[in-house]
């Protein structure tokens, strides 16, 4: 039962960096953080495959044990990493639309229908010209077996699943595994966006 109605969404506009992103907010790790370090890199692209120069990308993920840093995840049998919040923010690069995060590979988390989900990261993307947030998920191309059993991926038409899977890439600038995940609006290869 609902008594009140939701406050409508409006665009984040071109000036959100005044408040909503700061240097270093795309780095989730500290020396104490447990787990395998990874980098996520990619670009945000519009319907003409021009880069989106003013996107806000917010990342949310479980720690390396698969535990969320949140009171609703109260599983006593999965230890929480006190050196990891699971949240990051990045504003896309004005000239290239590129974004990046330094984080850890998340552990698997359960699905309410039973079984475990494949390791994944949630992204929420907003920008000038977007009147609502868009939600997507990053999966990893080196988790093929887990991906094939993931209930969320399986709910996506097979032809579109590849848009949710980040590819391990060589990155000479980085000593840690780097995964590439572009976020595309419109077109045949549009990224899958979820109604969460």
């Amino acid at each position: 039962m609902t008594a009140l109605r939701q406050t409508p969404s409006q665009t984040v506009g071109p000036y959100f960096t005044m408040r909503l992103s700061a240097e270093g907010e795309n780095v989730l790790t500290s020396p104490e953080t447990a787990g395998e370090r990874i980098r996520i890199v990619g670009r945000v692209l519009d319907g003409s495959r021009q880069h989106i120069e003013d996107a806000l990308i917010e990342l949310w993920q479980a720690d390396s044990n698969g535990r969320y840093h949140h009171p609703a995840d109260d599983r006593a049998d999965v230890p929480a990493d006190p050196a990891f919040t699971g949240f990051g923010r990045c504003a896309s690069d004005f000239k290239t639309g590129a974004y990046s995060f330094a984080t850890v590979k998340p552990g698997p988390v359960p699905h309410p229908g039973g079984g475990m989900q494949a390791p994944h990261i949630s992204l929420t993307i907003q920008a000038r010209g977007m009147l609502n947030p868009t939600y997507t998920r990053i999966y990893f191309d080196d988790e093929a077996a887990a991906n094939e059993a993931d209930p969320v991926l399986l709910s996506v038409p097979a032809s579109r699943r590849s848009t949710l899977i980040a590819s391990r890439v060589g990155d000479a600038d980085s000593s840690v595994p780097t995964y590439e995940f572009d976020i595309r609006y419109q077109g045949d290869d549009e990224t899958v966006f979820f109604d969460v």
Partner: protein
Amino acid sequence: MTAALTYSPRAHDDHPPFLYSDYRSTVKRAPTHDLIAIVQTLTETTGPGPGWSELSDDDADLTTNAGTGGEAIGQRSIITGRVLDENGRPLPDTLIEIWQANACGRYVHWRETAFPAPLDPNFLGVGQTRTNSDGEYRFVTIKPGPYPWGNHPNAWRPAHIHFSLMGPSIATRLVTQMYFPDDPLFALDPIFQSVPEHARARLIATYDHDVTIENWALGYRWDIVLRGSGVGT
């Protein structure tokens, strides 16, 4: 597994569409495939709200938070209200981050170059606070000015303040804009008009003389409603 906390669906009919062609920037940035419904999992029913708010300083007075020792120029205004969920439950300890133009309609942002309005050295236009145990928040600021933008010839945005709320999970994430009553630019602004007509009034603050402080500041009240939670079936 025990029944899990879930959130009520996003009320798409109460939010703008992704594509609203009068707002030209939506044309190339709106998804064209249907969204794919997800069964909410821990990924969706958790979020940074509770933890992230601990990282912020209390800084809810935008008339002084530039830290110059001087006061911002403009109509001093108090914006207060409650953050509730759809069930009418107050949401305590909820981080609210805001940003806005100054009294002349100018943002402190490097991309703002086309509008020759003065900057105010005593105004940054950013603030943050957390709701109290009753879900209440309160900002002191100056009323922002309307400003021109490039969407169409002689386009002006109504005066507004950008609000960002995490809420308790990523499903409750809300970025929106609060407007002031009786703005003549409402009818001309495609961003405001993108909201379905029945829901537009929810974005407009109400003048409240009980909030106004004699010889000091005008008062406005604006409540914010986020998606509600319950135990899913």
